[in-house]
């Protein structure tokens, strides 16, 4: 068995009396897609925020590559190679699609202090951005301002930015949200291949996508992991059916 890249143990977070994350153990191994499902309000996005460092945990540990990273802030964790995508697209609205991905490529180089060389002539950044856009099928829209892209295109641009970061792990918060059937199908095919590049911790509401993609599935209800297993195991898990799938099956 290969060592996990990411390992959470006993991770907890409360907002007042509300436990959004309750002693969660979870790991992510090389080459896998580990899906996190659960009803609305189960604390899935909060868990991603805890891992990415946007929220500080109250207790528990987060190990990345065998190293404890709980004390690192969001910026330091991103630099180690934890790259997240957002549930609601979070882009630079006045930049073009290419400009956004170029900026991600610049960020990967940790490069701030360039004052003379024009990014519009920066072949390295442009080539990398175009390659990432091409992989998600957006190269035809490279010059379009983000504010003029469709919702689906913005979702894909999120993925392209994450690709340009060349992360060690992807933290994806509902990448399919609002993509439509055709778009989702394409993205499923894409993520399926992406797992070999870096493992993916995937939050997703689209059950078809989860069952097709996930090597393992963890079910989160009220901040607690109530079940974990392969797609088949989860599909037939009695507790999961009542807590979660029951609503959808009706």
């Amino acid at each position, binding site marked *: 068995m290969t060592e996990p890249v990411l390992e959470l143990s006993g991770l907890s977070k409360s907002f007042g009396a509300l436990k959004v994350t309750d002693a969660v153990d979870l790991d992510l191994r090389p080459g896998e897609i580990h899906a996190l499902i659960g009803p609305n309000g189960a604390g899935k996005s909060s868990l991603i925020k805890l891992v*990415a460092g*946007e929220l500080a945990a109250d207790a528990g540990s987060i190990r990345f590559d065998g190293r404890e990273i709980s004390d690192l802030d*969001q*910026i*330091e964790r*991103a*630099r180690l190679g934890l*790259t*997240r995508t*957002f549930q609601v697209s*979070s*882009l*630079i*609205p*006045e*930049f*073009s699609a*290419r*400009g956004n991905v*170029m*900026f*991600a490529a*610049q*960020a*990967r180089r*940790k*490069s*701030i*202090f*360039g*004052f*003379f*060389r*024009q*990014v*519009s002539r*920066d072949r390295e950044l442009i080539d990398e951005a175009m390659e990432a856009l091409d992989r998600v099928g957006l190269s035809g829209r490279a*010059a379009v*301002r983000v504010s003029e892209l469709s919702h689906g295109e913005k979702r894909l641009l999120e993925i392209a*930015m994450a690709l340009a*970061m060349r992360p060690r792990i992807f933290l994806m918060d509902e990448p399919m949200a609002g993509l439509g059937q055709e778009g989702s199908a394409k993205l499923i095919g894409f993520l399926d291949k992406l797992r070999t590049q870096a493992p993916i911790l995937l939050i997703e509401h689209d059950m078809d996508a989860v069952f097709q993609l996930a090597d393992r599935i963890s079910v989160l209800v009220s901040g607690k992991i109530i079940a974990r297993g392969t797609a088949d195991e989860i599909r037939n898990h009695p507790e999961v059916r009542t807590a979660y799938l029951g609503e959808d099956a009706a």
Partner: protein
Amino acid sequence: MPEFVTEHRLNILLALILLGGPLVAHFADEPFLVTLATRATILALAGVGLNIALGLGGLVSFGHAAFFGVGGYAVGILASHHQTYEPLMTSPFVINGTNQMLVLWLVAVLVSGLAALVIGALSLRTSGVYFIMITLAFAQMIYYFAISWPAYGGEDGLSIYVRNAFPGLNTLRPLDFFLLCYAVLIVVLLAQWKMTGARFGMALQAVRQNEGRVAALGLSPYRIKLAAFVISGMVTGLAGALYADLNRFVSPTMMSWHLSGEIMVFIILGGVARLFGPVVGACLFVLFEHAFGSVTEHWQFFLGAALLAVVLFARGGFIGLVAGRVRHD
């Protein structure tokens, strides 16, 4: 808007007008108008400085007069020591005064940059209205410090009897001094233009638009904003240095909050984040002051009306009105 009115061409036209006006005035034997244009040029430079923080970075500093004043006082203090032949300090090493503009500018830029580093490091921990208020508070602190510092004139200010020197120019001739200030402005504008399209400019504009995203990509918004704030303070400090030589006088009024507000007005009139926005704004401001100031002492009423019109009907300021929206590749 028609395609031929690109912002780039408009900028070149504006730069030529700002150069041509004083040249005409000089040959028409109107030195006062040359000096007026010099004042507009220097105020424009102060606005260019603020525009880097406010326009590109979205950092609404209401205390930039502090850097303007610090730059001015750096010149005033060094020049006064040059006049009296008393060293500024003798231990641990001797620092003499000077009347060389190149040295004075360098000192002004360094000192105002240092002030911006300290003020920025503390202020940038806040944002929004708190940032506006804390930058104002720091500027007021420096203002009152200057008033209560009798060694350098206190409330009465400090005179520079002879304008400082620049190699190869007679800085006392209005046209020479104008051309010098104009050259400084153009060099700074070119540098800002380059910077805006380079990696730092991208990072700064990204921080303004979506700070959380920048952090998620592993870049520190705080460091980016602090660097911008320091550069911004340096440019405004350089303008203060020129202003001291223009008037051959520095006083605490250079640091008053009125001036901080006026610098902001230049940017809003001309166009926020537009390269030539503060240049247009400062020229309009000086023209208003000159044209209406001779008619009524309430000339600021007209300025206020113009400002209101811009905010209500032309959010992009003058440049936005003529050249349309900002374009990005």
